[in-house]
């Protein structure tokens, strides 16, 4: 039973570019959340997807957008990258909004 998988593991982009990160949830999970973790900080909530809809959004600009597919996998898109977007991006899945989160290994994004 595969856990949460994320791709790619590492990514280097230039300021102003766009990036797409991908996540496949754990089998049996239909809810996907994305978190950004800056160096030395705890994860910060970006948004959550359920039934292909954005159910809740954290305090992130519209440059951050997402999508959930019918098979529950999800994408995180970031446009017009800034240096401050450099971080570890974590995807978490759960069988319900209120139950335990299971995290993938993350995508480490570096913006130069």
């Amino acid at each position, binding site marked *: 039973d595969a856990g949460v998988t994320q791709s790619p593991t590492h990514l280097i982009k230039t300021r102003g570019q766009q990036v797409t990160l991908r996540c496949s949830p754990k089998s049996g999970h239909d809810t996907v959340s994305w978190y950004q973790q800056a160096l030395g900080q705890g994860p910060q909530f970006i948004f959550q997807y359920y039934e292909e809809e954005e159910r809740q959004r954290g305090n992130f600009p519209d440059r951050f957008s997402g999508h959930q597919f019918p098979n529950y996998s999800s994408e995180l898109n970031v446009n017009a990258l800034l240096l401050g977007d450099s971080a570890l991006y974590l995807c978490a899945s759960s069988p319900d909004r209120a139950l335990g989160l299971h995290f993938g*290994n993350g995508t480490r994004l570096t913006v130069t």
Partner: protein
Amino acid sequence: GIQVEQSPPDLILQEGANSTLRCNFSDSVNNLQWFHQNPWGQLINLFYIPSGTKQNGRLSATTVATERYSLLYISSSQTTDSGVYFCAGLLNTGNQFYFGTGTSLTVIP
């Protein structure tokens, strides 16, 4: 939002020692969880503990929901316990887990 304070921020232990990590919430939360983040960045779910006490091997956790805090106990620490420990909780309404700033643990042989 809510504030999540974790203490201590840093901890260095000799292998075999015991420790207690604390997590305080500024508001009532549900679905409290403890995570261990290894040096490679992987977040491992340790406990899902909205209330009461749970034990898993050398680790145990206690949450006192009415007083808005949770404790993580590590006994007979090992070098593989090194990493950052996070607690996180969910408000009664909403779908956002709020994380603390973590406790960085180093276990030396």
